[in-house]
Structure formats: C-alpha cells, structure tokens
C-alpha cells in the first residue's frame, strides 16, 4: 500500500517537476541579452550599456509594442502611398498645362 501511494505521489509530481525543469529555460529566454545571443532566433538587440542609457531587460510583449508596430507600418506605407498620389496629381496638372500650351501653337 505504501509503495502504491509512493508511486501515485511520484506520478502526480512528475508534470510539476517537468514544468520546474522548463522554467529556468523559459526564464533564460525572457532575460536573454544580446551578448549571450548566438542563439538562432536572435537578431541582436541593444548592447550592454556603459553610458547610462537604458537597457532592454525583458522582451516587450505589451500592447504598446503592438501599437508601435502598427504605427511604423501605417506611417511607412501612408508616406509611400501619399507620395504616389502626389505624383499622380502633379502628372495630371502638367498634362493639362502641356495640352494648353500645345493649344496655343507652341
């Protein structure tokens, strides 16, 4: 009976033990700095500071990060789209101008 209880205890404790083994690895991933990079999915973030500038101790997983990604993409593509629209308008006005000048026999 004691043996059975011990076995049950070990079996029930196994998932917790597995999670406990996984936790340090996860924690390492969370606080990984560029200096210990070399890991395949790293793209080299900010280096260690010596001039009092803030470091990035944890990966940003906040709504603010999503918001920044959205703004970056929106601004970049809006700028390019706006530029194309501006080019189109300038084309239109120049073509009208050249037709007007050709109409005067120049």
């Amino acid at each position, binding site marked *: 009976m004691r043996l059975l209880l011990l076995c049950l205890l070990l079996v029930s404790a196994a998932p917790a033990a597995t999670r406990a083994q996984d936790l340090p690895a996860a924690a390492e991933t969370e606080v990984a700095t560029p200096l210990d990079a070399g890991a395949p*999915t790293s*793209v*080299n973030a900010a280096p260690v500071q010596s001039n009092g*500038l803030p470091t*990035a101790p944890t*990966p940003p997983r906040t709504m603010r990060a999503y918001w920044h*990604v959205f703004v970056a993409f929106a601004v*970049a593509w809006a700028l390019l789209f706006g530029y194309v629209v501006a080019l189109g308008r300038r084309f239109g006005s120049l073509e009208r101008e050249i037709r007007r*000048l050709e109409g005067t026999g*120049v």
Partner: protein
Amino acid sequence: MNDVVESQESTRRWAVILSAISGLSVLATFWLIFFYVPTEREMGIVQRIYYVHVPSAWVAFLAFGIVALCSLVYLWIRDDRLDAIALSSAELGLVFTTIVLITGPLWGKIAWGVWWVWDARLSLTLLLWFIYVGYFMLRGATENPERGKRFAAILGIVGAVDIPLIHVSVLWFRSQHPQPVVLRAEGPTADPEIVKTLLFSFLTFTIVFFALLLLRYGLERLQRRVDAATFRAATRSSSINSQGAVR
C-alpha cells in the same frame, strides 16, 4: 519632339509594369511579415519593424548612391537626363530616409526605452537627411538654374560620402544600434525564416523604389517639357509685342 514623347511613353509603360509587380510583391511581403516569420525571442513583436526599417535604409542608400553616380557623370558630360535622374532619386531617397527616421525611434522606444540616442549611426543618418534637404534648397537658391544643378550635383556627390560612414559606424564606434545580422563575413546570425523575410523585403522595397523612380523621372521630363514650352511661348509673345511697338 516625337522622340521625347515616345521616350516618355516608354518610361510610363515600364513604370506601370513595375508598379504592378511591386504591388504583388508588397502583398507577398505583408504575408511573410505577419503570417510566416516567427516572433523574435528577445524583442518580441516590435522586431517586425525591422522588415520596413532595414529595407528602407537600404533603398535610401541606393537612391543616394544613384544621385552621386548620376551627378558625377552629369558634371562630366552635362546631359540633362542625368540631372533629372539624380533629382528624382534624391527625392525618393529623402522619402525613404524619412521612413527610416520614423520607424527607428518607434522600435527604439520599445527596445531601448528611449526614442532617440545621439550615437554615430543615428546622428549620421539624420545628417544624411539634412544634406539632401539642402540638395533641394540649393537647387532653388540660385538665379541661374544651370548653376543650381551644378552646385546640387557637387552636394549630391559629397553627401554620398556619409553612406559608407553610416554603414561602418556600428563597427567603428560604441553604438546603441544593432550590428548587421545578414551582411556579415561569418554569415547571418538570425533565424533562416527571419533572413528569408528580410531578404524578400529588400527585394520588394527595391522594386518599389525603381517603379517610383521611373514615375518620378517621367514626371521630371514632363516638367522640363512644360518649362521649355512656357519659355518658348513667353519668348514668342515678347517678340510679337516688340514688333508691335516698332510699328
């Protein structure tokens, strides 16, 4: 005159073809960025800004490189078309550098906690932007347009010296800015999917750049045709007026 019109039609045709290709390429890039590439483990979602920021920087450098090359040859053979290409490329370079200067701080605020730091790469990029703003101011600041073109060509060449400095600044100086992750002697350090997506973004931005360059060049040629026609019209009307005054 017919040659000019034909050449403009051909430029416009190529611009339309390239625009269609770049539209498809942009859609594919969006799919790669938002559905294919995994989220980077250290920086999280904000790393996806790289796929706009880094290719924009590449295209800006390409644009200013074209400005320098065309300006150099323009000073030598004085072909007006080279000046038109340089002007068009400088305008696009300015647009893409603006994108770099906006998207960079958006990434930096999350990754570093600050919008801007005065380190070598960031400061030199801002300097590049100001140099090419000066390029346009210089063109318009002279009474004689030909002199303006020459001065701007010289500034276009001198300004391009900043490009290699920006590239090596992260290697030569202590820098907050990330080191190169793809163009390295030891090979890319990033995940293959990240590298693939980044390279595809480079290709897309390059196609977009050439499509816009053709459109802008076509516009510049049309502008110069209008200027020439306006000048002819003004000359003719002044000569008619002077004949009337003599009678």
